[in-house]
């Protein structure tokens, strides 16, 4: 027995002396610390991937820029308005646990180090992202979100409150920066504006305008605040875009990498809603939004009709497909969009004065953005297809703005295109057998499984969230509207 104890004793001795050798549980594959710039880069990448990927595809079909091709069926559930509860798993996760979580990290670090410039960038990007979450899903976790272990089941915050708070935090970040302007040192790690603070302030202002305009049909509409912004007139002067793509696996434009490269360019084809609009207006943007089919023609399909048996045997290549390339940038906000926002602001809150200018600039900027050489004035000038005609009726005038905005967001920011159609109802949803596409019309998808002429107004919360968060109750259906959708 003595020997046993001496053995145990020896073992214990060995143990205590090498207990330290058990301290090997720090992951050697990852850094122990990172800086704001690295996290900001990743956050921008996450947001760009969703805006330019999942949302781009979803928005493209719901805004009726694209429709499901016959001969394939990857996205037929979107055209069927039968979008499942697991549809948004990836985009939701990427936005919250990817983008927003990193932006939160950048914000925290910036506050700690009193870097008001970096703080401003992170804050506006965060607000931009949260706005999309509300616009696509409705009430989402906000106040209780991003707290990690401290709250793993965040309750949703009403969308209206989120909007109010987003504007407040953006204002607060602007104020902090103005009070103590510490330029961000992230430099080129900011892949959108290269840490150019003047441009980020413009982004902040444009974003606020976008939020105010979204609230136009609600009791929270705030004309004076909008007009204050408009009179300050410090909106985007250059497009906010993520353009760091390269033609290599996992480094391409997200839509291109998946739909065109991975899935083989067989699912998404031109919807007649937009293609025929361009076509009948002789709009040169048709050739920048779509590619010609295998017979050198622009051919689309009526929304959802690709699922019809009569098109059996035809393929994606028989139709026009989105013209997105490997290195096409993902646009967060554009100057064109900013002009249309201002046009709407002036229409609503300044009695319509100056609307036409902003409208014309919007169209002109859009032409420039797509890189079409034609003179936009031939379209917006007197007698032109897109000549703005003020009728005095806000809705009638708004329709002109929004149809143009819709035509200017295709392939640029598709989800914004869809959100604006549901907010305003333009292009008008028609149930006519032969839609007057030249006026800018949407139709109820031929493949719809929803009763009557219902269309989706929001997306199901993803299963990944609902099954893990008992405080978030799944919505009744896709026709449920987000808070500002009160028209």
């Amino acid at each position, binding site marked *: 027995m003595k*020997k*046993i104890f001496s*053995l*145990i004793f020896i*073992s214990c001795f060995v143990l205590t002396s090498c207990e330290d*050798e*058990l*301290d*090997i*549980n*720090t*992951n050697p594959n990852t850094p122990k*610390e990172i800086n704001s710039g690295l996290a900001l*880069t*990743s956050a921008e*990448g*996450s947001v*760009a991937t*969703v805006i330019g*990927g*999942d949302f781009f595809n979803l928005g493209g079909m719901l805004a009726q820029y694209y429709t499901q091709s016959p001969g394939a069926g990857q996205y037929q559930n979107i055209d069927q308005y039968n979008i499942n509860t*697991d549809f948004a798993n990836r985009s*939701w*996760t990427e*936005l919250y*646990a*990817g983008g927003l*979580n*990193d932006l939160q990290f950048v914000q925290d670090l910036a506050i700690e180090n009193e870097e008001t410039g970096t703080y401003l960038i992170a804050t506006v990007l965060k607000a931009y992202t949260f706005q999309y979450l509300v616009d696509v899903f409705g009430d*989402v976790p906000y106040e209780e*979100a991003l*707290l*990690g*272990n401290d709250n*793993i*089941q965040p309750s949703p915050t009403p969308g209206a409150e989120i909007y109010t708070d987003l504007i407040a935090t953006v204002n607060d970040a602007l104020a902090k920066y103005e009070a103590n302007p510490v330029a961000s040192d992230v430099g*080129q790690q900011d*892949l959108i504006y290269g840490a150019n603070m003047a441009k980020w302030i413009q982004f902040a202002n444009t974003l606020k305008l976008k939020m105010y305009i979204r609230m136009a049909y609600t009791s929270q509409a705030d004309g004076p605040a909008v007009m204050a912004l408009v009179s300050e007139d410090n909106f985007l002067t250059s497009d906010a875009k993520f353009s*760091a793509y390269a033609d290599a*696996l*996992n480094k391409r434009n997200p839509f291109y*990498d*998946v739909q065109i*490269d*991975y899935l*083989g*360019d*067989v699912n998404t084809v031109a919807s007649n809603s937009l293609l025929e609009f361009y076509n009948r207006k002789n709009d040169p943007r048709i050739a920048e939004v779509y590619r010609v089919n*295998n017979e050198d023609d622009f051919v689309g399909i009526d929304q959802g009709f690709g699922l019809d*048996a009569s098109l*059996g*045997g035809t*393929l*994606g290549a028989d139709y026009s497909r989105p013209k997105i390339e490997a290195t096409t940038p993902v646009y967060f906000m554009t100057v064109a969009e900013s002009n249309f926002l201002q046009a709407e602001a002036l229409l609503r809150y300044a009695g319509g004065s100056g609307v036409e200018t902003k409208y014309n600039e919007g169209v002109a900027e859009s032409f420039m953005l797509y890189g079409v050489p034609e003179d936009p004035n031939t379209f917006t000038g007197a007698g032109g297809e897109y000549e703005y005609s003020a009728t005095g009726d806000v809705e009638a005038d708004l329709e002109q703005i929004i149809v143009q905005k819709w035509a200017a967001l295709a392939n640029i920011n598709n989800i914004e295109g869809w959100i604006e159609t549901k907010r305003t109802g333009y292009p008008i949803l028609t149930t006519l057998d032969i839609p007057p596409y030249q006026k800018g019309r949407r139709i109820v998808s031929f493949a719809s499984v929803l*009763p009557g002429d219902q269309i989706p107004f929001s997306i*199901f919360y993803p299963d*990944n*969230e609902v*099954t*893990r968060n008992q405080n978030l109750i799944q919505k009744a259906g896709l026709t449920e509207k987000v808070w500002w959708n009160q028209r």
Partner: protein
Amino acid sequence: MKKRLHGFLTLFLALVVQLSFAQEQQMVSGTVTDDSGLPLPGVNVLIEGTNRGVQADFDGNYAIEAVSGQVLIFSFVGLETGRYTFLQNPTINVILALDAAQLDEVIVTAVGIKRERSSLGSATTTIGSEAINQGSQSNIADALKGKVAGVNISSASTDPGASSGVIIRGTSTLNGSNQPLYVIDGIPINNESSSETSLDGAYDFGRGSQDVNPDNIETISILKGAAATTLYGSRAANGVIIITTKSGKAGKLVVDLTSTAFFSQISRTPKYQESFGQGWDGLHYLIENGSWGPKFDGQPRVWGSVVDNSQQLKPYSFQKDQLENFFTTGTYFLNNVAVSGGSETSTVRLSYSNLDQDGIYPTDADSFQRNTIGINAKSKIGILTIGGNLNYVNTAGSGVATGQGLSVYNNLMQIPTDLNIAGFRDYKNKFNNVSNYYTPYGITNPYFTLNENGSEYSKERVYGSFDVAVDINEWSNLTYRFGLDQYSDRTAVWEAIVAPVPGSPNFGSSTEYPGTYLEATSSVKQLNHDILYDVDLDVTEDIRIQTTSGFNINSRTLSSITASVGSQDLFGFYSLSNSGEDPSATSEISERKLYGLYNTTTLGYRNTLYLTGNIRNDWYSTLPKENRSVLYGGVNTSWVFTRTFEGISKVLNYGKLRAGYGEVGVDTDPYQITPVFVAGSADNQGFRDLNFPLAGVNGFEVGNRAANPNLKPERRKEFEIGAELEFFKSRISLDFTYYNATVENQILDLPLSPSSGYTIQRANLGEISNDGIEALLKLSLFRSRDGFNWDTSLNSSQNNSELTKLDDRINQVDLGGLSSTSLIAIEGRRIALIQGSVPRRTDSGQMVVDADGVPIAASEKEVYGDTQYDYTLGVTNDFSYKNLSLGFTLDVREGGLMYSRTANITSFTGNSITTTYNDRQPFIVPNSVQVELDVDGNETFVENTTAVDVAHMDDYYSATALARNDVFDKSFVKLREVVFSYSFPKKLLAQTPIDNVSVSLIGRNLFVWTPESNQFIDPENSTFGTDIEGQFGEFSANPSTRSVGFSLKTRF
């Protein structure tokens, strides 16, 4: 041979001597049998007072020289010793009775400790070399299939080199491996799986345990419960498979040669409908990859693409054995050679084996080779015993990918039922090449994919151990044992560019593919040190104490590098450099360590009553510092009551009762408890990612794993009772066990709601219970010395794994599967469940259909059922008559569900026999309703009058609402193994240098019976690995095979 020669020489000499010197040495011979008349091979025959002795041969015959008046002593372990005096009669036939007191076989238990079977208080199954090698399997797990109760062995597939998994007594963890610990000669070895379970191309190159050559195995002991496994610490929580390898025996040099050849064929394909051919929506389209076309009319019709203004012609009719004809005969050759021998003090054994396998796919795209070389030596020098073994293994394999996308089988199942698949063999001819292949769907010509895409795996492995033992005194010794297991492997996977010629039918279609190339290398090392102090002391005449104390250090390290490119430039050359892209590369290292201090003590009373206590303390590097040290232990007891009540031995010749309780602590993987920053990346629609650096800018981000500084080890607590009973001189034996195990503090990934900013946290979340029974019944129905023998053994087990508790913060644990139909665990339910979409129903149960009459899915998914077998049964029958023997094993598994992509894809393409309801004439879904909106926009239900028409038949069969159709009962009965053997009689061999020869004809997996609902596959198939997720089912798995072969076993 020497012995035999010696024997005959002796005989000859003896005769000569007898003639000249009568009264001198005489030859005495006879047969040794047991009291039922069965020959007893191997009995030692010794002349008393001399050191001369011989062994009885296989038939119990012996021959030895003796002088009249000398005493012959017959002895054998477990038998009463017989003493016979040689007087005149030169024939002495001996009957030896079983010795109740010495019946015990010695079993190697935890940490290499040897104990008598009687002393074990927990269920331990031991399988000997003969049973292991009977079927000439190349890996251990397959060799054990159907032979051990309570052990569920699953093979992912019958592909060459594919892995087999072993799960003992049910699921004990939902996160991580449920595989047992493999211990070879006291040293734990790596058993990682080299497989890729991606849905877009899965490969399986086997598990670490498959590198062990079964031919080198003397015995396998399977320790099932915590009561027995406590001494191995965390990794034994799923049981331990203890392998003792063969070593040389004192005596002459022996050479063993074994050669095995097998030929395999496809055994099961999904059953096809024979009435409808190519097309979609009822129409005949020549580019469709499905059979939704019109009814066969047998008329000649053109088909395929128009090439050079010409088109092919064939009758529009069903192609019989369309899939079968694609496959060829697979081959399997296994050769072993071993040389062994030794002296009283030193023994050595050298072995070499070669396995060469080519699967049933045409070409050698599915092949596997393995070479093993091993040496095993032991020497006793005074009080020192030094032993060791060293093994070198190299394996190389190529696999044919399974899954969706570019996998061959997936492609085959999308070919319409009227096309002759084998006709595409010449994949370069103008109709069959990628430009003009009849369809752009389902990727391209399967022969192209088979020939041009591929994978290669190779591994170099060295493992071995070395031990030194010092006899300190008569009753104690000290041992140091060192073990090493190290391997490096390399995987390459490539897919060819598919580039149809511009202007050709497939140009610009989904057929186009940029090609890929991936290369990965990894290096894995495990080091193990044990210091053991053994005491074996008879304290009094009645009381014996056996105690072992030890200290263990175990460390495991892994490093790997993976690089890939998403395109290839030159056709036919596969390399990272053959791409315009920069390769994306990742590297990983991982290290873990544990220290353990342990003791096991057995007190024995009169070889009748035993009490064993185990205790172990572990220190884990993978747990938070505060929770790092874990103490656990167990007790077990056994009572050989037939030694207490000797009177009953006429009926019950051996009876033992046992009971035990044990605990084991279980740690987790390295680096799971602290949050980390990770390389920046974004999930792009589930198909791709966005990876940095971009434009020269790198990104890092806050990882999605939240910290958990409070993580505690899992704790497995197990109670078991059992009985081992042998009746009528062991003609009937029964081993029965009931166990009940609970695993508390389940370490699981808590999926966090993404809105928290994180998606996962490793936490203690639940409790699993497993309870079940295991029974092994052996019957010797016929026993006759020179006649007919029939042994039957039945092993059965029933296990119920349940997730008894789950933290409130989650309502289910995701275990894998697909996003649509998935594998989950829910509190209070059996593990694991399949959940999927169901039709939307009204309150009164009517099915809701859409405007086309096709059922709509309900918004909530439902659980279809669980994936556990209700019971498993292994039936082995061995018949022998003289030198002939016939054995077969039936494997019966009943209950449980599985998902089948094979069912899904053949329903989608309309190939499956299940797609012909109502002869594909329009039908109205019975008792269905449609939704209408009333004036207020509320939903109302009206009776459905819309029939599912021909154009929507395919939508019906692939409706989300009907996803349950792809999930079915996975029960089966399999004729696992049939072995028919003939051993050449000794007499025939007497003139040759050969000692033993036997030939066997072997069949494997000859038949499988499944329930009606399974028209598709061999339900054992899995592409989700061989652990818990493997229970989910298959995702276009390669078809299984049946094989027939023969083996030749020779000993010189």
